[in-house]
């Protein structure tokens, strides 16, 4: 029995949000100008992630050279201190991490104009400093921002969020407490479209409910896209101002 009312009859969640509200979302780009070609820092709720992009650059080994397009790689580093309780293992070679890496590569391969950068590699590193549920969605957002900062051509934003199903109520953008209490789905959409670039269902979700879950998820990703867009424009404006001074 949970110690909390996960979703109270008054329609409030454990942290005080309503069913369709996002957590606080803060992002900035070009946070590590000297350490990487593109970088971003993202806080989605209590998730804190740093994304660094190196590239397009000469591949470190010959085997990575693709004459048609750039080779994209994603490395996820869930630090040992990121969860509430320190984890013993670095999660680097866990099956779940590898799966996530593969699906992130697949998602962005389709959305980047990789053919513009043949014979190069683009290496993305994601460092999660703090985790609080819905990390995969947050990583989508962080990578999108860092790639934009790196100036790599892409068709549109990819934005991600998780949605849970509590009884019959879909809940947007789960924190870890909620994530443990219900089954959830991570959704990544392209721009303002209804096109899904990523769908990850890790627990059982009844099919007849999936539609309502996706609808709220898509609406959520669109809002995140707008928040990222706003930050990018703000950043661009300050840069232009600074350079013109």
């Amino acid at each position: 029995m949970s110690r909390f009312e996960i979703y109270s009859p008054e329609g409030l969640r454990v942290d005080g949000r309503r069913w369709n509200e996002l957590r606080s979302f803060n992002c900035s780009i070009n946070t590590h100008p000297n350490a990487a070609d593109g970088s971003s820092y993202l806080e989605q709720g209590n998730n804190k992630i740093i994304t660094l992009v190196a590239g397009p650059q000469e591949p470190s080994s010959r085997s990575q050279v693709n004459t048609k397009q750039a080779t994209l790689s994603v490395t996820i580093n869930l630090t040992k201190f990121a969860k509430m309780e320190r984890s013993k293992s670095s999660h680097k070679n866990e099956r779940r991490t590898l799966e996530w890496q593969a699906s992130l590569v697949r998602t962005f391969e389709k959305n980047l104009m990789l053919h513009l950068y043949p014979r190069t590699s683009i290496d993305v590193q994601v460092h999660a400093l703090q985790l609080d549920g819905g990390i995969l969605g947050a990583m989508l957002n962080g990578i999108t921002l860092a790639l934009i900062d790196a100036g790599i051509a892409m068709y549109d934003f990819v934005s991600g969020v998780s949605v849970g199903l509590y009884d019959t109520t879909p809940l947007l953008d789960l924190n870890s407490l909620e994530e443990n209490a219900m089954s959830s789905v991570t959704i990544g959409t392209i721009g303002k479209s209804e096109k899904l670039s990523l769908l990850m269902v890790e627990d059982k979700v009844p099919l007849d409910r999936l539609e309502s879950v996706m609808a709220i998820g898509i609406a959520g990703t669109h809002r995140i896209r707008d928040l990222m867009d706003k930050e990018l424009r703000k950043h661009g404006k300050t840069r232009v101002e600074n350079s013109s001074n």
Partner: protein
Amino acid sequence: MGLSLTEKSFLYDSLTLDPPLRPDGRGPHQFRPLEVSTDFLPNSNGSSRVILSGGSECIVSVKTKVVDHTVEQELLVADVDIQGHRDDSPLVTSMSSLLSKLLKQTIDQKKLMLTKRYSFKLYIDVLVLASKSYPISMISFAIFSALKNTWLPKLISNDDDLEVEELPTFHDYDMVKLEADAPLLFTFAIVGDGVFVDPTFEESIVSNNGLLITWYKDKVTSPIRSVGLNNDNIKGFSQHHLEQAFKLIRQYAPHIEKALDASD
């Protein structure tokens, strides 16, 4: 990224001038601008982030766990993760073991004791996001300021539990500041007759040798060792290099300590 022979020789010459001229205009005792922030990871008991002007960056988290110290003697664990290096690479493993050993020697473990049976165990996790030069000095600064800003839960149960065991219980809100002094490590590049603190990547390349010196509780202490900052033109060094370095440290380390301590 290598330097051409001409570049190297120009750099070497300017560093051996009297007075020496460092490419960024620093004096031999001067550090590059350093940015330190602490307490930015609420999930951890202590955290700090050190960014050097060249883009090198290091994040340290301090977390705790309550352990039975009659069973588990290791109360300090330092774990280093350097981006771009495997966890089992020589750099990472040597750095982890050096730090663990050093912290065990310097941190008073009685300060971690809760009861006659239980103690806090500290996990000091180091993440080096980017490093252009030998990172140990930056890491030690980050650990120092993280430990200076570490808050531990406050015990409210009985602390005598040797005969009749009690599980420690803690105050639900109050935290106690950890009082621990961590050592600071300094790297010097030896170029000709001179020693230069906090060498840049380029300075390291032309150095004849490197020195690693520990500063703890107002004293120069062990480990003091030489480190190869590059793979060629290693030369021996003499006593006066050491003395020069010691002198610099004694003169400037207290200021650095103070600056790091006040950084919250």
